[in-house]
């Protein structure tokens, strides 16, 4: 059994430091790792990254994050990632990391992701250069996510993004802005690997639960959606129970 804590869109600045810490200090009793689905900061400044590192760093469990669109706002995303890495936080962008937890290997592949929309209502890689750049960006990012997911041999595999891979977890947002909240290309990447769980944020008015066409559980962990410091998800419990049942 592995327990994963997850939250997104915490938008930390100096006014937020200390708000999450009491709940984060309880993490070792509740989960084996913490995943944060982007929008760690308000404007993506180095100062805000230091605030995030102070609030979410130095915990007794591993912390793995992707950046979100807010973390790109000041064009300092590389420095932001450096500050987080120096604080012991794993930042994923087109890579995977493996955590050894209770004898299990948990793989986490992460990208920020991008928009584009969903089947039947999505942008196409066609026309003006700006439109091809927009959709082309999503295609590149989705390919990197698929490659990262397939790069590890693990017992449980989690996809971590900021943008949404399915429309079900956007329900509550205006339909008109779905193409700016996620892309089916991310869902296709997730379905191309033996993914156990996909976590994302970005959609503050969205819904918590969805599933990819391939059957992978999707959870929108944006803070305004889950309305607590983090959610906890349990993986690998069914298999263990089934094995025990088989033995008996």
């Amino acid at each position, binding site marked *: 059994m592995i*327990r994963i804590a997850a939250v997104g869109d915490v938008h930390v600045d100096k006014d937020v430091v200390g708000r999450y810490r009491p709940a984060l200090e309880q993490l070792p009793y509740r989960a084996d790792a913490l995943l944060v689905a982007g929008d760690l900061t308000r404007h993506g400044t180095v100062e805000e990254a230091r605030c995030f590192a102070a609030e979410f760093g130095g915990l007794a469990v591993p912390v793995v994050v992707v950046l979100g669109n807010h973390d790109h706002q000041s064009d300092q995303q590389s420095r932001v990632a450096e500050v987080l890495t120096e604080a012991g936080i794993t930042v994923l962008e087109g890579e995977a990391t493996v955590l050894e937890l209770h004898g299990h290997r948990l793989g986490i592949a992460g990208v920020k992701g991008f928009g584009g929309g969903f089947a039947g209502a999505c942008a196409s890689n066609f026309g003006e250069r700006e439109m091809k750049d927009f959709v082309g960006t999503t295609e590149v990012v989705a390919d990197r996510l698929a490659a990262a997911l397939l790069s590890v041999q693990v017992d449980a595999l989690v996809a971590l993004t900021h943008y949404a891979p399915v429309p079900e977890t956007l329900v509550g947002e205006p339909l008109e802005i779905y193409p700016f909240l996620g892309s089916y290309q991310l869902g296709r990447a997730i379905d191309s690997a033996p993914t156990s769980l996909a976590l994302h944020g970005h959609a503050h008015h969205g819904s918590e639960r969805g599933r990819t066409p391939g059957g992978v559980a999707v959870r929108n962990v944006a803070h305004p959606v889950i309305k607590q410091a983090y959610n906890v998800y349990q993986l690998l419990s069914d298999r263990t129970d089934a094995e025990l049942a088989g033995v008996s």
Partner: protein
Amino acid sequence: MNQIDEEYLEAEIQRLLTEDGRVAEQGITVQRREHAVVLLGDVESDQRRDEICRQIAEHFPELAITCDIGITRAQAPSEVEEIS
């Protein structure tokens, strides 16, 4: 405010909420009532909620504003969801 300006008011408010560096919020819903605007959503601190209301009041002094913005709770969870 003339009729055309009224039509663009919601867009102007949304631009202010997102693009003004003092606010930078994408998760606030703007509801138009006949003579008022209601702001709905959740932010991370009291200061951010107060700054939103201050900015909207300053830029649109003729509007009556109801600020129903809450502060997202940050307590530890009490339940675990099993993923299968």
